């Protein structure tokens, strides 16, 4: 009877050739060789894959940020550890895919800069806390969709909110500010600071909520598009 070589590494990924049985709370390690689904392997390589993916925390403890409790996501009904791993991997996979889409979107003027910046933010978040979300995928998707609607925007300064949502800011002369917080539900919260032309020592400050599809229309009275576009 032929012996089964358990240590042999398959040459190609063929799920049928890799019998996997997972017991209890053990996680599955995907050892499939190469075969990246993307042609831009350099960028793919730069996407962190080394982070341990164990438990999905919606909130994580942060020292010196007291009165903030740590809790494991509880929707729906406190998923078991395998479900949580899958949730986190799905979210990270979505972020990875979105970064690639942004990088490949030649119609967006600063597609490369945006993709690189988002990747840096993801790495920074993971460096601090490898169990964190990194970037909220739906927030990033809304950010991407916004740029697909407005392809000629200048490159904003991007940072992450404490919820790992994308926050983009454009700053101009006379301390003009236009900042947009991309929420995962498709809404955006925006802030506008601009000079008050009639009262030079004063400023106009506006904040509001909109959806990505009508944001630029909503802020039209404040002549934002002129200075944040190329």
């Amino acid at each position, binding site marked *: 009877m032929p012996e089964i070589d358990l240590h042999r590494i398959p040459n190609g990924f063929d799920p049928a050739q890799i019998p996997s049985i997972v017991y209890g709370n053990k996680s599955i390690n995907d050892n499939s060789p190469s075969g990246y689904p993307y042609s831009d392997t350099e960028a793919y390589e730069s996407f962190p894959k080394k982070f341990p993916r164990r438990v999905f925390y919606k909130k994580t403890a942060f020292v010196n940020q007291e009165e903030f409790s740590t809790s494991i996501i509880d929707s729906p009904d406190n998923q078991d550890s395998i479900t949580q791993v899958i949730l986190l991997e799905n979210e990270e996979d979505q972020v990875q895919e979105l970064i690639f889409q942004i990088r490949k979107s030649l119609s967006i003027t600063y597609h490369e800069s945006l993709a690189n910046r988002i990747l840096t933010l993801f790495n920074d*978040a993971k460096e601090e806390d490898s169990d964190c979300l990194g970037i909220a995928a739906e927030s990033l998707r809304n950010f991407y969709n916004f740029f697909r609607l407005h392809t000629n925007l200048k490159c904003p300064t991007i940072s992450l909110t404490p919820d790992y949502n994308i926050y983009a800011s454009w700053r101009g002369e006379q301390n003009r500010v236009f900042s947009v917080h991309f929420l995962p539900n498709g809404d955006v919260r925006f802030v506008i600071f601009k000079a008050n032309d009639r009262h030079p020592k004063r400023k106009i400050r506006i904040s509001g909520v909109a959806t990505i599809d009508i944001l630029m229309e909503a802020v039209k009275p404040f002549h934002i598009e002129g200075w944040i576009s190329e």
Partner: protein
Amino acid sequence: MKGDQIPDTDHVARFCRPMQVSDGQIQATAFLLRPGEKSLSVNWLEFLNCSSRESEITKIRTTYSETFTVGARARIAILNGGEVRKKVLTESPDGQNLEVLHDPLMNDPSHSGIYNLKQDDELIAELILETVRESYSARK
């Protein structure tokens, strides 16, 4: 003592995470509350009783490194308590009255908080950002 109001002439340091810093510039997201937080954590610099800003920063960096992971791009924002309060009081649409209160912790006696902030208040975060006058690397 816990709950003491920090004098308006004094300064506080805010730890700004790498994801809230871009090209060394601190962003407004550094001044947004995390879900469940009631105050923005800061450290009262004059409480440290140091002779210079440099030695205050050195002490703060030590406190950070002993208590949490400090990313390479993390920064420390220096704020004047009175300036933050006045700015937000006079320039926020509803005249928000912030309080900067001492809130010592066992391992962090200069720990303090900026209170009366609301969750998800990007406008206030942008106003506070405008009061940042100095920033330093948060890493030792």
